């Protein structure tokens, strides 16, 4: 049977036009919301267009009409079968104080693995510098750290002028953007089944461990803590969270026997990945400001004790935030 195509078009056109009108509205205005009657009508029109597509495919080979109907069904399909709503506005405070720490805790295993890899790198780097002093220029590829820690401390403490004057803001923004780039890179490398993320975390750990042991062996632990803690207490956990996001990506790719397609797994986890990396970016803004405006100043300008206290306080606050913030209380759960 071949359908009477002219009559078919004449009879159905008004429904297709009505469906197109709905779709145009939805596409042009993301805030457009249908009431119950409109939703029912939209669903009816979608089903009617689907049925028409089936008829034209079965009983006719009219290519243009088939494509036209397919495009209508395709456009409507997303709206019919997508359950998520487009957010009208993002509640930033709610996201930072609830969603971010909740997501962090949801993937705590990935964070612990990320921390373990970094610590392993630290041990390796520290041991390498401790056992072989010639390893220092290889493991710490920064020119300003090539002199002995004692020489550096003596130089920093004898400075009588503010070398950061006139550069603090640009240094701060450089640190923020650079560290955010590195964090994003650590995260996206998770797509290599986590190998890239693991290498980056390990390498960061190696540098950190090498610097720490170098300063400790030279008796400059107090300077080291005063120099690194104020910004490192935020920056290092931020990098670890980026590694956590990378390992979440790796875990999604591997799937661990879940009966869900890799496509669907990535779709399900994309919100968590976004939350983690956005949280990292926020933490790195703070770390960048502290590193530029505080960490580069040493005794006698700012006492090491004060800097260490501040660093420890930040670390405690961050731990408390990630551990407790957004956690539902007993009363909330029963409400």
């Amino acid at each position: 049977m071949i359908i009477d195509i002219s009559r078919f078009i004449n009879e159905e056109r008004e429904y297709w036009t009505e469906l197109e009108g709905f779709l145009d509205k939805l596409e042009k205005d993301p805030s457009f919301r249908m009431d119950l009657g409109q939703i029912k009508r939209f669903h009816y029109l979608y089903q009617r267009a689907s049925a028409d597509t089936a008829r034209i495919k079965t009983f006719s080979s009219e290519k243009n009409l088939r494509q036209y109907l397919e495009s209508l069904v395709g456009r409507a399909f997303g709206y019919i079968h997508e359950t998520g709503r487009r957010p009208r506005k993002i509640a930033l405070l709610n996201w930072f104080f609830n969603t971010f720490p909740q997501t962090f805790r949801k993937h705590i295993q990935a964070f612990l693995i990320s921390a373990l890899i970094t610590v392993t790198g630290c041990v390796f780097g520290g041991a390498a510098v401790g056992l072989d002093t010639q390893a220092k220029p290889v493991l710490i590829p920064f020119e300003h750290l090539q002199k002995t820690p004692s020489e550096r401390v003596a130089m920093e403490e004898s400075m009588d002028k503010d070398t950061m004057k006139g550069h603090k803001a640009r240094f701060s923004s450089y640190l923020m953007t650079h560290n955010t780039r590195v964090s994003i890179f650590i995260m996206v490398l998770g797509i290599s089944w986590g190998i890239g993320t693991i290498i980056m975390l390990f390498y960061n750990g190696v540098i950190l461990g090498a610097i720490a042991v170098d300063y400790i062996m030279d008796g400059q632990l107090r300077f080291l803590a005063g120099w690194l803690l104020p910004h490192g207490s935020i920056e290092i956990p931020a990098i670890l969270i980026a590694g956590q996001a990378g390992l979440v990506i790796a875990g999604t790719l591997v799937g661990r026997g879940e009966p869900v397609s890799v496509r669907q797994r990535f779709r399900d986890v994309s919100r968590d990945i976004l939350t983690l990396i956005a949280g990292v970016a926020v933490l790195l803004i703070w770390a960048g400001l502290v590193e530029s405006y505080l960490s580069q100043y040493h005794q006698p300008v700012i006492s090491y004790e004060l800097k260490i206290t501040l660093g420890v306080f930040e670390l405690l606050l961050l731990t408390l935030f990630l551990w407790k913030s957004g956690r539902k209380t007993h009363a909330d759960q029963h409400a």
Partner: protein
Amino acid sequence: MRTNTLNIITPEGIDFSLRLAGPVTRFLAWVIDAASVIAVFTMLEGLFKAIGALNSDFAVALSILIYFIISIAYRIVLEWFWDGQTVGKRIFQLYVMDAQGLNLQFSQIVVRNLFRFLDSLPGLYLVGGAACLLSSNAQRIGDFAANTIVVWKQSIPEPDLDSVLADKYNSLRVYPHLAARLRQQTTPDEAGVVLQALLRRNQLNPADRVSLFNRIAEHFRTLVVFPQEAVEGQSDEQYTRNVLDILYRK
């Protein structure tokens, strides 16, 4: 088999196809987007200069931050508000969509754009381009992670059949029993060939046009034989048009 289309089957059993964008078109769209980012940043330079006159350190810091934010947020914001399109994609009629045909989530847009850090390595999107060539759905790594695809925006015109189904006298209709047999003997695919041939007849060169309609007419003459007086003096193209009229209009 690898094709440049993605077929999606709805729960209602209807399948529709999406034409996937290849790496070259996507690269050209990216070039336009990169130029747009530079243009926006160049426009802001005057502002940075003005701020620099008051505080040069702050102006440089601001320019570093703004450039970083624009280079990342440009695509995210536009793809979110323009339903998967940026300036480059809009020019090339491309748009990003969910690989399962569903609506794009904001997190998918962000994830696919953050993966540009990897896809753009070692330069000029070589990693992303290679992934796009190897992927069955022409996805770069970011698309794979975000479960998105980039497709051509198909502007499907409303079908215009009036030009070939004009209300003219059809001598074959004088024999309704033969017309009914013709409808019964013809498959939808054969009917489709007739329709497409007539719709595209003006795109053919004269010799090919004569040859094509001769072959079509000969085929249909073997299916049902109409009396000589019904087809006398008709060209092959006219005969084909009459056949189409019977097939597509009861």
